[in-house]
Every structure is written in C-alpha cells, then in structure tokens.
C-alpha cells in the first residue's frame, strides 16, 4: 500500500531500473505507430518488460519457489498459444491475453486485501478504495474479455444477447457494487463482502459484453484493453509502485485513442457499441429483403481472366471471407502474374476489413504482400473511377453502397470503399448469403457487377490458370 508501513517505496537502484523500463515502454509505443519501426518497437518494449521484472525479482528474496513455477507455466502456455494461433483468430487471442491481465489485476487487489486484513491491518479508506477500484476494473476486464473470446471463437452465439431492462439491471448492479464498496471502505475490512464484490464485478463484466454483437467486438476488445491499462495503473497505487501507474496510464490513454479511431472507422459511436445491440435489428429482414425481381450477373473464371488480363488497373478488395478461404497466397500470385503483364495492381484495405481494424493488413502481410501496396481507404477511393476491374473477394459490408444512400440501413454513414465506381466490379462469393453484419448488399445487383460464385481459393486458382493461358495465347 502506498505509504502504509507494509510497503516502502522501492530502493533507489530499483527506481532507476523502473525509469529505464518506462522509457522503453514509451519509446516502444511510439515506434509501434510506424510500419518501419514497429517490429523493433515491440522489442524495445520487451526489453523494458525484462528490466521491470528483473528489478522486481531482485528486490525480493522470498517466495521464488512459488513465483518461478507459476511464471514458467504462464510463459510456456502463453508462448505456445501465441506461436500456434492462426492470424485469422487474432481478435480473440488479444481478448484472451487482455483478460489474463485484467484477471491478474483483480487477483492482486484481492490478494493484497486478504494479506492486509488477515494480517490484522484495519484498512484506511484510501487503501481499500484503491483495492476496490483495481478489483472492479480488473474483474470487468477479465469477465468481459472472456465473453468476447467466447463469442469470437464461436463457443457461443455471436449475435447480441438481450433481456428486458438490461441497462437498468446493469446500472442497479453497479450501484450495489458501489454500496458494498462504501461499506468496505468505512469498516476497513469484511473478507466475505470483498468476495461478494469480486463476484458482482465479474457478473457486471459478463452482462456488459453479452449484448454486444460479434461485428462490434473489436471495439469492445480495444476498450477492455484500455480498461486493463487503467486497472494496472490502479494496481500501482495498491502495491506502491509508480512504474505500474505510468505503464498502465500509457496503455489506458493510448488504448482509448485507438478505441475512438476504430469506432470512427466503423461509424459506430462508442455509446452505440455498448448499448445498441447492433445486428439484432438487421437480423430479421436481411434474408427476406432479397428483393424479388432483382437479378445478379454470374460470370465464369474464363471470362473474368480475359477481363483481368487486358485491364490497365485492377484493385483487389479483400475481406474476411478471403482469410477464411485461406486464399491470400493465391491472390498474391494472381496479382504478381497480372503485374508481370503490365497491369497496375492495388489492394484496397478498409480500416475495418477482417475482424478487427488493421486485421486484413496482418493477413496479407502473412502472404508476403508488401505493406506499401496496401492502400488505405482515403488513398484508394479516388482510384476506383479509373479502374477497369475491382475484384471484391470475401468482402461485403465495406463495399455496400447502402452505407451512402440508404439512411435506414444499419451501416448508413459508414465510410466505404467505392468499388461500385469501377468500370466493372467482380464479386467472388460463396453464395448470396449476407455478410457478417447480416445486411443485404445492393452492389451485387448493379449492372456493372459480375458475380463469380464458389470457394474463393478455388475461384482464384482457376483465374490464375486462365490468366496464364492468356499469356500463352
């Protein structure tokens, strides 16, 4: 506890070590914001973490027999999981690791509470207040992240789960937790009450995330990431270590900026994400709205190959469907063949393509596509009008013109890639099923839109073969 007799501030050598660690974190985060320095930035932050952990272990010469095995187990599980996880599962992976950090913060608070109260200390209101806050935020972050993980991993339904008086019940639960917290702060103890508080905070985390739909989950994960940062900062007050305060605040603040950037890119104000139960409304009419009388224009790989081979400029618009079909390498191969024929090829990346902002960039990087060929929305949108063919692969909502011209659409106002402005739009799609957000797409019925049905990987492989034939001819 800060100032309480139990903990004193760390010794001078340790404080200097922590300052070095924090400098590494700040520099590392800064470097993570540019593609040229990002990789090194993560390593700089990693060095900071090693220093911080080393300095902490160096201050204590007891308890290693428990600490080292627990840390070794956590390190092995974390490393193996992180090395094996497919890049498509990145959102839930981040949610899982984030939950672990939140859980750690909550347990530290709980452990410190029992250490002090069972040790006969009557806690002052500042001591118990920081413990309660750290426990509350950490628990919400842990439980919320676990629900986010379960939804994205499809261990449970990704659609919003709602019940009557949802916000009122959540609000009431928060008030009850505050009341319990006040009792603990006034009495300075109460082990049983503390457990009730902990369980209540976990329940609040679960109930806050259940109504959020799968499509909005990245924003929630980013928000919970920021939460865990704040929980770490409060933990710094609990154990009297300012390096936690700084590192936690850095993550809390930068995480909140990232959350705002993401919700802007998705055109989903953060309040809507939290309270809107997005996707629920769109669910019903989506299938039925498959307007009768509208027709699509199917095409074949042969015809499309000719079209591509004699284009001057082609833009690929990849979506999550591309990654699901594991067709990134094939798309890159097709792009390389076209480039060899003198076709100018670009990739148009919507900020929320994939399942979290920036996810598609990671997925294409995995397939060796250089990042400078990946054009962001603002850069690439003016290009579509002078593009011969826009090839939309496994993307749907990010090219849906309804976002621009249908105020009733749930995605109205979301910035989109203007694939519809290309001379010809080709959509590679498994079937006419609506996308992740469950919304019908009028682009598929446009006169300049051709549909190539089938598995994305098979379709692109056929295209590669056909374009090669064109080259031979």
């Amino acid at each position: 506890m800060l100032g309480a007799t139990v903990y004193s501030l760390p010794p001078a050598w340790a404080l200097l070590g922590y300052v070095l660690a924090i400098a590494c974190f700040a520099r590392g985060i800064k470097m993570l914001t540019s593609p040229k320095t990002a990789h090194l930035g993560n390593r700089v932050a990693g060095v900071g973490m090693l220093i911080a952990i080393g300095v902490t272990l160096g201050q204590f010469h007891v308890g290693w027999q428990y600490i080292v095995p627990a840390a070794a187990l956590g390190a092995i599980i974390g490393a193996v999981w992180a090395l094996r996880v497919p890049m498509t599962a990145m959102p839930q992976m981040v949610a899982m690791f984030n939950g672990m950090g939140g859980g750690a913060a909550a347990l530290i608070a709980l452990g410190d509470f029992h250490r002090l109260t069972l040790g006969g200390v009557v806690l002052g209101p500042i001591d118990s207040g920081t413990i309660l806050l750290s426990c509350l935020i950490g628990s919400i972050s842990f439980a919320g992240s676990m629900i986010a993980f379960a939804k994205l991993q499809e261990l449970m339904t990704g659609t919003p789960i709602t019940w009557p008086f949802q916000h009122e019940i959540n609000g009431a639960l928060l008030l009850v937790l505050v009341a319990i917290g006040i009792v603990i702060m006034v009495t300075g103890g109460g082990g049983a009450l503390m457990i009730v508080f902990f369980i209540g905070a976990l329940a609040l985390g679960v109930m806050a995330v259940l109504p959020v739909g799968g499509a909005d989950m990245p924003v929630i994960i980013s928000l919970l990431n920021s939460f865990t940062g704040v929980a770490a900062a409060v933990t710094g007050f609990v154990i009297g270590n300012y390096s936690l305060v700084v590192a936690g605040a850095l993550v809390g603040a930068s995480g909140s900026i990232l959350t705002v950037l993401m919700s802007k890119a998705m055109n989903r104000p953060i309040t809507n994400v939290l309270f809107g139960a997005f996707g629920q409304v769109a669910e019903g009419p989506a299938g039925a709205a498959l307007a009768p009388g509208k027709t699509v224009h199917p095409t074949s790989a042969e015809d499309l190959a000719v079209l591509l081979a004699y284009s001057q400029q082609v833009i690929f618009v990849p979506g999550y469907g591309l990654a699901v079909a594991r067709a990134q390498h094939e798309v890159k191969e097709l792009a390389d063949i076209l480039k060899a024929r003198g076709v100018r090829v670009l990739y148009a990346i919507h900020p929320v393509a994939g399942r979290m902002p920036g996810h598609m960039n990671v997925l294409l990087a995995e397939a060796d596509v250089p990042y400078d060929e990946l054009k962001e929305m603002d850069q690439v949108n003016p290009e579509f009008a002078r593009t011969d063919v826009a090839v939309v692969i496994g993307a749907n909502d990010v090219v849906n013109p309804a976002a621009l011209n249908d105020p009733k659409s749930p995605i109205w106002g979301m910035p989109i890639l203007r694939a519809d402005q290309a001379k010809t739009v080709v959509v590679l799609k498994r079937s006419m099923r609506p996308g992740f957000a469950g919304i019908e797409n009028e682009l598929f019925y446009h006169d300049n839109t051709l549909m190539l049905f089938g598995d994305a990987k098979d379709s692109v492989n056929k295209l590669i073969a056909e374009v090669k034939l064109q080259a031979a001819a």
Partner: protein
Amino acid sequence: MSESSLVLIGFFIFVISVFLGLELITKVPSLLHTPLMSGTNFIHGIVVIGAITIAATVNNALAGVIAVIAVFLGTLNVVGGWVVTDRMLGMFRGSGQQRGHQAAEPPAAAGPPEGKA
C-alpha cells in the same frame, strides 16, 4: 512522507502519463491498428510485477494462492502478448525488402542487438 502525499504524487504521475499516452499515438495508420492493440495489450502485462510483489510478501495461505494465480495470469499476458505481436510484425515488410522467405531473416536478425542497446 505521509500516505496521502504519496498517493497525490502517484495521481500527479498518473495524469502526466495519461497525457503522454494520448500524445504518443495521435496518428496511426490503420495498417498498424491490430499490432498496436496487441502491443499495448502486452505492455499492461506489467501488472505481473504487482503479482510478484504480493506473492513475495504474503503472510497467509489464502493471499498466497491468489497471488500465485495472479503471477500465472500476468506472465501469460506478458509472454503471449509479446510473442503474438512479434509474430505479426515480423510478417510486415515493404516492397524494398521483398523476396519471399529470405527477406524474413535479415530484419529478424537485425532486431535484437539494436533492441538491447
């Protein structure tokens, strides 16, 4: 120093750090949103040093068990978060650095020495 002044100094540090955090990532290309989220996710794993502190100073079994679980969770956050971020960023390269899998080696090999500096 009294407890309240130490808490106030902590609050002072907290507020300044928040402003630093806001300044650090004003403009990030969406290209890097996923690795940045993952990278900051790794950094809040710093809670593990709180878990170590509690685990090293416990005086009863209940608090000890809780603290050891916290060490486990915190390390999972740190190691998993770092490894997955490193994996992701290792795949990014510009067209200058080209050519398939050979290109994966030089940046990776060049990284650690500078990182330690």
